[in-house]
């Protein structure tokens, strides 16, 4: 039986205080020195968030695992080349994840492949229910893929990572009000794409 980490609250109301600058400096120094304990600590803190973000964007566990770990490898390389984060490791990780995802999507756009479902059907539910559920999720995902990158990001952070408005604004480097507006438009666009309920 595989152990799993708990899922976050979908919409967080708690604003997690960002790390202080001295703490970040210490971590960046540790990264520069390739200190295993510092690397492991940074990885343990941020991997679940990056994984959830990538999964939300792409809907694939294997891609989420590969890309999320790849982001941390890139962090090590970037710090070594003095091109890493200056004071916001989390923001850098999300930014890089977003770019890796964009690269991946560009590739699949050029070489489209039919993705196979990875998840194992829940034996507790009937096969019909499972098929219905997957079809429903697939249609939502198709609709989601039609959104702009910014709209996809705001939904991934808010509903995939469970970030508060403030945290989302911090990662996206936007004002909270801008995130509110973006979220509204993203949800409206999603509903429009799903087409179940006409909007506008």
């Amino acid at each position, binding site marked *: 039986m*595989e152990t*799993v*980490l708990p*899922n976050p609250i979908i919409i967080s109301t708690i604003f997690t205080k960002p790390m202080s600058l001295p703490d970040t400096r210490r971590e960046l120094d540790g990264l520069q020195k*390739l200190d*295993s304990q510092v*690397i*492991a600590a940074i*990885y*343990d803190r941020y*991997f679940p968030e990056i*994984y*959830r973000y990538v999964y939300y964007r792409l809907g694939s*566990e294997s*891609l989420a*695992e*590969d890309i999320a*770990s790849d982001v941390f*490898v*890139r962090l*090590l390389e*970037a710090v*070594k080349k003095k*091109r*890493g984060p200056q*004071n916001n*490791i989390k*923001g*850098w990780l999300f*930014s890089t994840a977003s*770019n*890796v995802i*964009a*690269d991946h*999507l*560009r590739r699949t*756009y050029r070489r489209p492949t039919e993705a196979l479902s990875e998840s194992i059907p829940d034996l507790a539910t009937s096969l019909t229910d499972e098929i219905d559920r997957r079809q429903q*999720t697939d249609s*939502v995902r198709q*609709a*989601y*893929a*039609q959104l*702009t*990158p910014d709209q996809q*990001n705001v939904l991934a*952070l808010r509903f995939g990572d469970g970030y508060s408005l403030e945290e989302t604004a911090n990662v*996206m*480097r*936007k004002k909270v*009000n801008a995130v*509110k*507006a973006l*979220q*509204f*438009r993203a*949800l409206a666009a999603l*509903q429009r*794409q*799903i087409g179940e309920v006409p909007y506008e």
Partner: protein
Amino acid sequence: MNEKLYEVLEACLQAVETGAEVESVLKPYSQMADELRPILEASIQAGSLAVPSVPEDAMRRGRARVLQHAAEMRESAVRPHKARFAFSRFATALALALIFILSGTGLVRASDGALPGDNLYPIKRTWEDMRLLLVFNPEGREELEDEFERERVHEVDELLAEGRHETIAFAGLVTEQNGNNWVVSGIPVQITPDSKLPVDPVTIGASIIVEGRTNLQGFVEADRIELLEPGISLPPFEPVEIEDSGLENNDNGGENEAEIDSLKEDERNSNDVNTYDDSTIDGTNNDARKNRNDESNDNSNDDDDESDESDDD
């Protein structure tokens, strides 16, 4: 007006998250209900795309990959002459070289899948030493040594799978420590009261040599743990199936997935393109191109913050 709408939406999202029905949530906001209803319904759909949970295995594998990469970077930064215990059999290899050459490679091939304790295992190890002797390129030799060290990990994994009791030794990286139960390059290792440990503490990320015995319970009982000097290359962190390709070295380190290969290829091809600062998420999704027209209405409402965005692509 919009500001009020967004505030109400946020309150409604919180309520829906706690399990409230959309209609009951909208009751206090009857004037905005028609506008908010489809948004809230979309939010429920949006929630369905989240991953149910983060698999611990995925996290463990990723951690191992990252720590392995850090170890390799440390090695490349230091890279002294590599301490290799394989070279200790130099003389034996030289003496047997002629015998093997004269007897052909049939015996060697037969020993290819041998495990510690098997009759053919010494032949397998000696052949490995001979192959090292025949490689004069330092980089080629390092690759070969890495392959052999991966093979050691693979052998231990096989022995554990078969539930055999054998004396083994392998080099690896400590990726987990839970009391006396460690994971070294994907191999469960138990530290017993009789285990001889180095004076310096062994922490996660340390490069070590494990000497011990495999057992039926599926772990290695450590007799001795030795800390490796910084700069010693290590096998990968998960036991990998070494492809049986005769005497040729075709192992690619276990990364066979086309997706990863293409990711790395893309990383190489667009190394400069993917130089990121710690600014913000942006990303450009070609899949979203089709939505540009639909988005035009949205763009007209965008806040001034949109100008903050940069497109690294």
